[in-house]
């Protein structure tokens, strides 16, 4: 499976990655190789086989709806690259 430059650019946008031209060319080759390898799976008949997303039979784990202590605001903000007035600060969103 050969992946095109347009596809690499589209997927990068979905993944919120900005790629340099050199990175794109490399990824076209590497992803094409990996996808060709992955296509060996097409040789297997999986009609009617249930997909496995998780190996344990655990479903809908819930807890009682009672409040528990969380992180204090100061600690929650301690790792923020930018903060202001007790909030995370980000570049302007609304023009």
């Amino acid at each position, binding site marked *: 499976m050969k992946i095109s430059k347009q596809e690499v650019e589209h997927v990068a946008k979905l993944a919120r990655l900005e790629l340099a031209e050199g990175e794109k060319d490399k990824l076209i080759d*590497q992803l094409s190789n990996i996808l060709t*390898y992955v296509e060996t799976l097409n040789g297997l008949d999986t009609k009617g*086989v249930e997909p496995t997303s998780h190996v344990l039979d655990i479903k809908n784990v819930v807890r009682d709806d009672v409040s528990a202590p969380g*992180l204090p605001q100061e600690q929650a903000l301690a790792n923020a690259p930018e903060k202001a007035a007790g909030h995370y600060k980000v570049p302007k969103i609304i023009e």
Partner: protein
Amino acid sequence: MELHDRTIHELRDMLEKGETTSRAVTESVLNRIKTVDDKVKAFITVTADAALAQADRADKDRKAGKASPVLGIPVAIKDNMCTTGTRTTCASKILGNFVPPYDATVVARLNGAGSVMPGKVNMDEFAMGSSTENSAFFPTKNPWDLERIPGGSSGGSAAAVAAGECIAALGSDTGGSIRQPAACCGVVGLKPTYGRVSRYGLVAFASSLDQIGPLTKDVTDTAIVMNIISGHDPKDSTSADVPVPDFTRSLIKDVKGMTVGIPKEYFIEGMDPEVDKAVREAVKALERLGAKVVDVSLPHTGYAVATYYILATSEASSNLARYDGVKYGFRAQGAKDLLDMYMKSRSQGFGPEVKRRIMLGTYALSAGYYDAYYKKGQQVRTLIKQDFDEAFKKADVIATPTAPTAAFKIGEKSSDPLQMYLSDIFTISVNLAGIPGISLPCGFTTGNLPIGLQLLGRHFDEGSVLRAAFAYEQATEWHTKRPKL
């Protein structure tokens, strides 16, 4: 023998008899780090002062009557497990300055049992890799041959244990990341059953595959650490609410009545003949110790790497979406708007392998490809799991090589991602099936590089795996060898 070369159980006995102190053990380990880590490069962060304070507290607690097999024992932590107040980088620029405000459950349990943390150890960035060359900081070297890789992604954990820079370590294993480095560095590494150990506070790579486990100098130490870190945790909804046995009770010196399965699909062409020979010799040793050896078949083995690289990258692309430069981690400067800030922070913060896997996973999950890749991968996962279910009807444990070759040279596979992925060919199926697997030393190549034997068991039957591993280990001397540094 220096204190730093000893095992947990040897030191426990010495500490209980008053023959040494935790301070002396911790100083021995910290001195060892000072002497050899400029060569091995296992540690990202050394927490010497905090470790000595923990050691003094352990010595005081012991005098006050506290007892625990890891009380006062230095255990290094892979840098993808959260440690309150100590930075947790995942060997990534994007988390380079991240200081967690909470402990991972495994860390809290070790602390509760009184162990000492000498520091945080290196890894492939976000645990993506098989050589620790993908660390954003520096590659770790194999203590047996400094020109070779220590394996990965828990390469720092394995190298630190082998070099005596800690007494034991925790690693994490998504496709072999505990077992393959254990094999490369000649130590013991166990990936427990999925759900056996809480993942709370482990930075997620592929949530349905990730599992934390010990890397130690022998099988007894693995059982000791498993007793401390195992068990249900309400903070991890995928941790299993099943009883935890005393794993040290599985340390029995024979395997009478046990059946060992040998899958022909794991003895392939292209495998190093010395590895093949060492593993076959190990199987013969198990037979001499009382096991019945039978052939089993795992027919879908050849599809495991392809399946893994769809499922693991898909989960990773979703898990790593959280790194956007807003709440924590690296934020790029000079962005013109919010979207631009996301794009620039992620592009500058992630290394090439992480980007490659995010791209692959995003592609596999994107519109039009979901059925062809992700769903197909999940269906093949079912077939791989069923292979093991069938095989374990005939065998109590399955014996295989851990990796097709001993440790390769630094740089040898870094330009070809697919070749690197194939070094996980014998470990990956185990994560897809969720079963437990151990790697332990079973010989050396003529170049004096360690070779790993892998033993696999049924879900939640770490006991049989540990028993077979212990019986083999006690009949051999490989675990007593230490690299010369």
